[in-house]
């Protein structure tokens, strides 16, 4: 448009007015296949047979009954955290602080367990631990929301910093005498008493039931309640929300409390269910991975479940890769990155139609006058 010279443009990008479900699915599948091709090429460069590698990964995730249980165990925190983050993302609040909120939840649960020990009935203790983790993490996550509501403070960066404060808090607790094992001086928080561990159903701690319940609750909260409606309006347009008389500050603070509370719950499940102890790897990057799970799933409950399971499978599979082929398990992160980049990139081709000049052979300047077109 502003280019006076008539030159052949490399590509022309046109916004699609409509795309059928089948068409968008095809684009997504193609992107998915492409991502695996790239991963395969990477493996070939390192002299591994990609098919063998994928087979080993699948075996690592599903090969034995206990491995399936491990995969489910890995899915639980992702589902709950992604659900929590989705609440915030729905109103365009960038909660990057899932990692820290998980840790705060874990700290609160551990503290309750250490304080009460075996002095109260087990179910009371576990409920107290859950409540403590939910409330503490919720409050922790509320701080950025309060500042965002009052002063428009950038929540992305503030929640990010809160991750590191929480991590350092754990390092500090690891070096605090009263949190360590009495028998030795290792800089580690001591194991939780078996009394304060979660019961198991089908061999996996009951977190998986809680995760499914949370997904259903999330669906109803967003789709069927006034609160959910307010969140969606704010997410669409702050102006509309104000015009409709929605108290945006209140909704923001309330929703962030819930968002962080869910992350805290995931922390409780990690400490009392999966790990049995508190460490700086209690969250283990889940807070960050869940951001992408939520985003890829478009904040929709069923997709959150599928995406979480997929990531958990990749992680488990890469663990097996390390034992079988001595490929460092960081490979999971590379694979997740490549697949997600392709899946996100393909969204562009769903929204826009791209035609290349060398394919059509037409001069792009001829159709330059239409408003909706974009030269590139």
């Amino acid at each position, binding site marked *: 448009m*502003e280019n006076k010279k008539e030159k052949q443009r490399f590509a022309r990008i046109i*916004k699609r007015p409509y795309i059928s479900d089948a068409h968008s699915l095809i684009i997504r599948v193609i992107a998915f296949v492409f991502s695996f091709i790239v991963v395969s090429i990477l493996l070939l460069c*390192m002299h591994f047979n990609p098919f063998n590698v994928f087979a080993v990964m699948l075996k690592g995730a599903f090969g034995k009954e206990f491995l399936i249980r491990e995969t489910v165990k890995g899915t639980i925190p992702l589902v709950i955290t992604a659900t929590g983050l989705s609440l915030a993302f729905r109103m365009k609040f*960038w909660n*990057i602080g899932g990692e820290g909120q998980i840790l705060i939840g874990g700290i609160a649960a551990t503290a309750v367990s250490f304080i009460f020990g075996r002095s109260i009935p087990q179910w009371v203790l576990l409920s107290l631990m859950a409540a403590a983790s939910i409330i503490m993490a919720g409050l922790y996550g509320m701080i950025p929301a309060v*500042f965002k509501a009052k*002063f*428009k*403070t*950038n929540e*992305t*960066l*503030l929640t*990010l*910093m*809160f*991750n*590191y*404060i929480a*991590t*350092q*808090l754990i*390092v*500090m607790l690891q*070096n*605090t005498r009263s949190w360590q094992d009495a028998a030795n001086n290792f800089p580690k928080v001591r194991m939780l008493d078996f009394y304060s561990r979660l019961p198991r159903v089908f061999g996996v701690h009951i977190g998986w039931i809680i995760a499914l319940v949370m997904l259903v609750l999330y669906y109803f909260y967003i789709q069927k309640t006034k609160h959910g409606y307010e969140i969606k309006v704010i997410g669409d347009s702050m102006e509309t929300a104000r015009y409709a008389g929605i108290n945006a500050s209140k909704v923001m603070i309330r929703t962030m409390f819930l968002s962080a509370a869910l992350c805290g719950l995931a922390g409780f499940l990690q400490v009392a269910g999966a790990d049995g102890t508190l460490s700086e790897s209690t969250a283990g*990057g889940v807070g*960050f*991975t869940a*951001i*992408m799970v939520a*985003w890829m799933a478009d904040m929709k409950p069923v997709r959150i479940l599928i995406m979480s399971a997929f990531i958990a499978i990749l992680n488990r599979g890469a663990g097996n890769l390390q034992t079988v082929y*001595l*490929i*460092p398990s*960081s*490979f*999971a*992160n*590379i694979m*997740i*990155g*490549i697949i*997600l*980049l392709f899946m*996100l*990139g393909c*969204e*562009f081709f769903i929204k826009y139609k791209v035609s290349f000049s060398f394919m059509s052979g037409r001069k792009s300047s001829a159709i330059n006058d239409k*408003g*909706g*077109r*974009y030269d*590139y």
Partner: protein
Amino acid sequence: MIINFLIAAVLAGAPLVLATVGEIITEKSGNINLGVEGTMYIGAVASLAGAVAAEKLGLSGFGVAAVSFIAGALSGMITSALFGFMTISLRVNQNVVGLIITIMGTGIGNFFGELMGQGAGGYISVTDETKAVFSGIHIPGLSSVPVIGELLFSYNGMVYFSLAAALAAFFIIKKTKIGLKLTAVGENPYAADAAGVSVTKYRYIASVIGGALCGLAGMYMCMVTNSGVWVHGCISGYGWLAVALVIFSAWNPLKSIFCSIIFGALMIMRLYIAIPGLNPFIYDMCPYIVTSIVIIITSIRKTGKDHIPESLGENYYREER
């Protein structure tokens, strides 16, 4: 004692200067790249791989350092070009892409670092000769001046490079036409585009240059801080600190030098200053708490001139102009 502390603070702060200046350049164009941490990992492993490869080819001393330098910068450029492609061309959300780059970069760094270690039988390291290049310089006469000589003329070359990079960035952003256009793109891309500035071009170039500096920051962490040995998880949050430092230094490369050194001091304070009865690990929390407070304070008293680029984090949709 105090001099040692100051020197250690500068040494710890130098990679932060590089990464912060890189991120400032990127953010000035309106792109927020949260992938600094990942870019640093990639830069670190690439520079180490470059150094080891150069040693195998028979280079020594400064030759190895040069190859390592180029590898670090180039890998950072490629990584941020990928970021640019995803956000500028494909218009994917910047936060998400940045996080993916962080996850993928951390994976790439640790993966290839460990793989190289396995190949070398245990752990990977450069030769002592290469290590010597990355340790402090010695200028005859100047370096032996007491106090001042130690404080100003005893560092490795990368420290001086990072200071020069910050000064150059300051000059270009504040004093040249290019810098003005860059600022315009970051403040209001629609207006900049209407004025004939190519938003796409500026955002790409800013991201790539920023990425190069982040890659070099990674190189510093690997080659200087860890003296040419791959350590699992070696970047350990420095990239995120840089993201925070950008705010702390109010998008001003010159201020970022001082802020980075302050942060460097906070990072190493535990080793030098002990207050009896206080858990020393509380020091490690300081940089993050200080940054949080700064983020909040700057949002409360929106000072006019040095504030956040208006369109930061927003992709540019030309058809919505």
